[in-house]
């Protein structure tokens, strides 16, 4: 295994779904069910059985809109406010209307949501006036249940092929180029429609542990989705609104808000005092968190040791069994017991992810990108605060729209020279006798991201980042060396990471104001609604480097009153409590 073989094969399908994590399986299932005669291919760089953010399960839906507990209007309002108003509401509203149907469908697949003792949904109140959190007691079976449905529907699954570039023809998508991660063989998939579900860009910043794979996101999600969309000419929105999360330090897994919050756990400083009241993840909350870390009161901790024993055992059960099951080992190794010690927290490395922010490939309420026949769903599409249920729901929307689109069109012709060019690019590091291995290219890129791009953002630092990243790009293009197919996969990931870093720098420099709390805190600029109450759209410019423009926020369909708009401002505890 891992020997470089270099074959090339070409196949065709009606709909190609790239990424079989969360959104992807749902997109493939819905497409196939709507047109059982169609040829639907689901392709993943890992193995669909256990790939993506939910590979080992989840502890609950963060944002379910269930009749009787919340309304689509209410939800749309909350999300608009949480995003500082920069939000096209149509997609959020559509999600809110359709997600309950998806919950019921997931339930019929055998994915179980917490029900009360009469068998009715047991929604927990966590944020806002509405009630949105639905725990999943057997969350560890999600991926298994999905996979079973894929097998039953006879979806064609292709594992261990990594998509590297999209093929286009004018303003239409024509397919994708993929490379086998264990043999370097090429696969060209001609497709009438392509749905991208490649997840977040999780390997953009470097975690404080220094371990390249110790990221918050599934480390297989290295940003190819963003890079492919960019190179194909699609627009990407608001990339300057990074994802940064409060996490358990070093372990880098989620800590608190949804699980421990409702049960009475909270975030404190070293003195055991609360400094933020609300643990709901937002840019404003992250700013307070950051300020506390930097202050003499830091570091920051998760405090549970004041809770009743019954409550603590419940928290342990939820946190250690599903989602990140190694968390129990971690605390054991450190000798931390929730009953006795507080748990040190930190902020995560930066990434791109709409799950917790507002950035991503620009899509409308049908999950369509700015390229015909090309769709995006899940963490990489810019429908804000989508999380897991958003990935499922928007994946479903994309699948149903794409299969209809594919029924009406023929294959788009593409230029064979594009394939040749991609082959040359991909294989270049195999043509050298020595050079810089991909892990060093990646480490340096990510270290520069930490040094110069993570907030607080400073103009001069970001300009330095652009210079230094250009030097790394030069090395990558001219001196990167790999010795086998596995390393070749890592070299392609390094290229995506570098593309994402360039996009992060460009987008952050373009928006000359501060917004979204810490996510886009540009210390040399104030917030400026007059000039910047808009999306920023990044595309590939003429000289093959990013260019940005403004795009108006679409008129709201749900109005927001003035005194509701500051809902996420000033979260610091001021009163002596």
């Amino acid at each position, binding site marked *: 295994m891992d020997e470089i073989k270099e*074959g090339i*094969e070409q*196949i065709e399908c009606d709909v190609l779904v790239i990424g079989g994590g969360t959104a992807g399986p749902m997109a493939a299932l819905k497409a196939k069910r709507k047109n059982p005669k169609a040829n639907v291919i689901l392709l993943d760089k890992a193995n*669909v059985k256990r790939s993506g953010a939910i590979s080992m399960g989840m502890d609950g839906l963060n944002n379910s809109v269930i009749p009787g507990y919340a309304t689509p209007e209410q939800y749309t309002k909350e999300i608009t406010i949480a995003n500082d108003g920069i939000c096209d509401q149509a997609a959020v509203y559509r999600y809110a209307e359709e997600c309950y149907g998806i919950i019921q469908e997931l339930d*019929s697949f*055998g994915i179980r949501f917490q029900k*009360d*003792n*009469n*068998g009715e949904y047991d929604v927990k109140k966590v*944020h*806002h*006036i509405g009630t949105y959190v639905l725990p999943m007691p*057997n969350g560890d*079976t999600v991926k*298994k249940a999905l996979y*079973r449905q894929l*097998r*039953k529907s006879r979806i*064609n*699954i*292709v*594992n261990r092929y990594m998509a590297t570039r999209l093929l286009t023809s004018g303003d239409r998508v024509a397919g994708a180029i993929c490379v086998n991660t264990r043999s370097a*063989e090429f*696969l060209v998939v001609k497709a009438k429609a392509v749905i991208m579900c490649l997840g977040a860009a999780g390997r953009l910043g470097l975690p404080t542990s220094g371990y390249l794979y110790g990221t918050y996101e599934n480390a297989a999600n290295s940003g190819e989705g963003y890079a492919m969309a960019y190179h194909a000419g699609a627009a990407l929105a608001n990339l300057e609104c990074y994802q940064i999360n409060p996490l358990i330090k070093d372990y880098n897994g989620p800590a608190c808000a949804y699980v421990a*919050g*409702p049960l*009475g756990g909270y975030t404190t400083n070293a003195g055991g005092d609360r400094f*933020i*009241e*609300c643990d*709901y993840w937002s840019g404003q909350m992250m700013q307070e968190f950051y300020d506390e870390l930097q202050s003499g009161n830091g570091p920051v901790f998760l405090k549970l040791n004041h809770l*009743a024993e*019954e*409550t603590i055992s419940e928290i342990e059960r939820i946190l250690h069994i599903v989602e990140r099951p190694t968390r129990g080992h971690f605390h054991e190794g450190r000798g931390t017991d929730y009953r006795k010690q507080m748990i040190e927290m930190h902020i995560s490395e930066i990434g791109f992810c709409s799950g917790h922010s507002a950035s991503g490939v620009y899509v409308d309420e049908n999950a369509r990108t700015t390229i015909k026949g090309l769709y995006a769903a899940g963490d990489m599409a810019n429908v804000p605060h989508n999380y897991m249920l958003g990935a499922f729901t928007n994946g479903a929307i994309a699948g149903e729209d794409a299969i209809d689109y594919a029924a009406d069109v023929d294959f788009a012709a593409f230029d064979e020279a594009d394939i040749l060019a991609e082959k040359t690019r991909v294989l270049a590091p195999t043509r050298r006798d020595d050079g810089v291995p991909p892990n060093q290219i990646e480490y340096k890129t990510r270290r520069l991201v930490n040094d110069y791009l993570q907030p607080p953002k400073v103009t001069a630092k970001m300009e330095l980042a652009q210079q230094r990243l250009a030097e790394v790009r030069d090395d990558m293009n001219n001196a990167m060396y790999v010795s086998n197919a596995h390393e070749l996969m890592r070299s392609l990931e390094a290229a995506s990471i570098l593309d994402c870093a360039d996009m992060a720098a460009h987008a952050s420099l373009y928006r000359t104001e501060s917004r979204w709390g810490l996510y886009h805190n540009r210390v040399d600029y104030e917030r400026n609604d007059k000039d910047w109450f808009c999306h920023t759209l990044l595309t590939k410019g003429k000289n093959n480097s990013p260019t940005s423009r403004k795009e108006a926020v679409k008129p709201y369909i749900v109005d927001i009153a003035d*005194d*509701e708009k500051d*809902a*996420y401002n*000033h*979260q*610091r*505890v*001021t*009163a002596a*409590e």
Partner: protein
Amino acid sequence: MNNLFEDFNDIEMLAEDLQSTDAGERIMAVIELTDTADPEVIPHLATAIRDQDINVRKQAAIALTDFDGVSTAAALVGALSDEHAEVRQAAAVSLTELKDPDAGDAIIPSLGVDDEFVLVSCLAGIKELRRADAMGPAIEALKHHSASVRCEAVNVIGWLQDKTSLPALRSAAGDNDALVRRAALTALGFNKSDHAEQILVAALTDSDWQVREAAAETLTKSGSAGCVPSLIKLLEDEYWQVRLKAVRTLGKLDARDAATLIGEQMTVPVPNLRKECAAALGVLAVSDTAKFLEPYYDDNDPDVRKNVRWALEKIAHTA
């Protein structure tokens, strides 16, 4: 590149591998049979779950999670008596994943056994299948000496939502085990009768705080104005978790008499509780309670703030 697409071997060929003398090969056969996702493999897995090797049996028990129906259930029920705990555990988990009500045919007969583990697992398995004929055995199981059994039995009864079960739930609500009492109280939520309410109100003074919390919470779902005085007393409970549920229920029941007492809870330094109080005060909209809310117009917690502002607006509107 001949195997581009995920594909699986022929079922009969794989089934032959189950006859291999090597346990490792039999495990691999179980895994590959499962991956076909074809119900035809169920009989083969049912054989494998009785294999002489523990790992083969365990793998078969895990594999059956992917299937449904009466023969799957029968194989799993059999494995609940396996000599190895790991196999028993895996079978118990798989049992709870069944969805097809017909699968219950294989479980119902075992609801009469005495073995604690088998009974707990079978009750947990039958619960979501909502089989009316599980009611009798579940009520019978309430007499079992094991509290875990009684708990699961109560859950089965609650899911059936049948008012003839009220006497049984009443006695379970008086169980000497707190977990059973909690389960029984939450199970009562489907029934809006005086009878059910009396049981819940009585539990508001239980010695265990989580039982009191469960009773107060269930009253949000099913309580009537009659339980207001008892809920008001609960506002003095030493646990904020209990008070929080009482506040929520009082709001839902439109207990305007309670508004001042709820307002006084606003000073408690637990934002979870403040949030709930503000929401309840908004629902009740009693004009002289605005004074309790005003100091929190700019509360640091956005949720509290939001609820406070909304509540003040409601109160102003009503006045």
